[in-house]
C-alpha cells in the first residue's frame, strides 16, 4: 500500500496475506457490499448509500459483474459459427427414448396383446397437426389426466406462436380443430378439452412446404 493510496486496509476482512487495498468503506466490507448488490440494494442501507467510498466500491463491483458476463459473451461470440461438427456430435448423442413418456393404451380383443402409443409419439403428432395450420408454430403440448387409463378424461393444452396478421381467435380455433381431428383419428383418448395458449406473436415467418 502506498501512502497516497485513497484506500486503507479493511480490518473486518478475513485473514488474508495479500495487501488489502480498499477504499474507505466506512466500516463495511466488499463482501457486505456484494451481498447488498445481490439483494438488489433493497432494503436501502443508508450507511452504505451515504458513504462515498461504498458507492465507489459498489460501482466497481457492478462493473466487475458486467465485465464477467461480457467476457463470457465475447468469448462465445468468437467461438460462434466456427465449426458445425460439434452440433452434429451432440445431436447424434441424444436418444429418441428420452421423451417417450407414458404408455397410452390401444384397445385389442386379444387378451395376450399389449398395444400402446407412446405419449411422445402422440405429442409429436399433435405438434405436426398444429404446425400444419397456416401461420402457426407449435410449442409445448401437455396431456393432463391419466392417459394410461382407457376412458379417463384428458385435458389437452398446446402453446403456439402465430404470425402477425393472423386473426388470433380464428387461428386458435383452427389449431384446436386440427388437434382434435388428429387426436380422434390416431388415439382412443377421451379428450375433454383442448386449450390453445398463444404465447408469442411473430412478425417474420418463413415459407416452407406444409
Amino acid at each position, binding site marked *: 500500500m502506498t501512502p497516497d*493510496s485513497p*484506500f486503507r486496509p479493511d480490518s473486518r*476482512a478475513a485473514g*488474508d496475506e*495479500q495487501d*488489502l487495498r*480498499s*477504499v474507505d468503506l466506512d466500516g463495511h466490507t*466488499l*463482501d457486505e457490499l456484494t451481498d447488498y448488490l445481490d439483494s438488489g440494494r433493497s432494503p436501502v442501507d443508508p450507511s452504505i448509500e451515504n458513504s462515498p467510498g461504498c458507492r465507489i*466500491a459498489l460501482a*466497481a463491483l457492478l*462493473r*466487475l459483474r458486467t*465485465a*464477467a*458476463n*461480457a*467476457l*463470457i*459473451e*465475447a*468469448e*462465445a461470440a468468437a*467461438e460462434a459459427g466456427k465449426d458445425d461438427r*460439434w*452440433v452434429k*456430435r*451432440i*445431436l447424434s448423442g*441424444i436418444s429418441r427414448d*428420452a*421423451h417417450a*413418456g407414458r404408455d397410452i393404451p390401444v384397445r385389442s380383443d386379444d387378451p395376450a396383446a399389449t398395444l400402446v402409443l407412446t405419449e*411422445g409419439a402422440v*405429442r*409429436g403428432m399433435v*405438434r405436426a397437426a398444429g404446425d400444419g395450420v*397456416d*401461420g*402457426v*408454430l*407449435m*410449442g*409445448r*403440448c401437455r396431456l393432463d389426466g391419466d392417459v394410461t387409463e382407457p376412458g379417463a378424461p384428458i385435458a389437452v393444452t398446446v*402453446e*403456439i*406462436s402465430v*404470425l402477425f*396478421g393472423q386473426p388470433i381467435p380464428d387461428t386458435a380455433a383452427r389449431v384446436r380443430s386440427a388437434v382434435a381431428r388428429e387426436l380422434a383419428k390416431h388415439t382412443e383418448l377421451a379428450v375433454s378439452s383442448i386449450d390453445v395458449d398463444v*404465447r*408469442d406473436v*411473430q412478425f*417474420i*415467418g*418463413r*415459407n*416452407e412446404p*406444409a
Partner: protein
Amino acid sequence: MDAEAFSRPALELVDEVIVVGRAADGDARAFEVLIRRYGPLMRAYAVRLLGHGGDADDAVQDAYVTAWQQLDRLQDEKAFKGWLMRILSRKCIDRIRARSDHDDIADHEQAASDAGTPEAAVISRSREDALALALAALPEQQRRCWILREIAEYSYEEIAEELDLPASTVRGLLARARRALVSEMEGWR
C-alpha cells in the same frame, strides 16, 4: 401476407418458451436451435472453469445430453439458460474432482503468472481483456468459486457443497478473489 405460400413463425426467431417447449416434447430440431444458441456461451464458460482442451468440449456435450433427457422436467421454460448452465457446472465440477483424484495435486492454488500481472491488466484494451488477465492470475480455487458465483449464480452454500469445501472457506476464497479482481480491474493499488 402471401395467401398462397405456407408460412409460419421461424423456429430460430420465436419466443424461447416455444422452442424449449418443443424440445421438451422431443423435437430434435428445436433442440438443435438451443445447441446453436447457447453452445458457444456454454463452451466459453466451461473453458473458464476447466481450461482449454478436450475436457471443456466433453463437458458441454454431456451437459446437452443430460438437458435433452431432463428437459421435460423443466417447469419454467424461460429459465432454460440458467438451468443449462447449472447442468454444465455440475459436469465441469465432476471433471475437476476426477482430475484432482487422478493427479493428486494438493495445490490447485498455483497461479498462471504469465501476462497475468496487474500492470498488463491495466494497459489492456478492454475491460473484458483486463478481467481475462486478472482471472488468469487468480489461484484456481478462487477462480472457480468466483465463476460459479458470478456467472452461474450459485449461492455460497451450493458452491461449498459442489466443491466439498466448508462454506466459510468459500466465503474467504470469494472475498479474496473479489478484492484481487476489483483491485486489478480498477487499478486500485
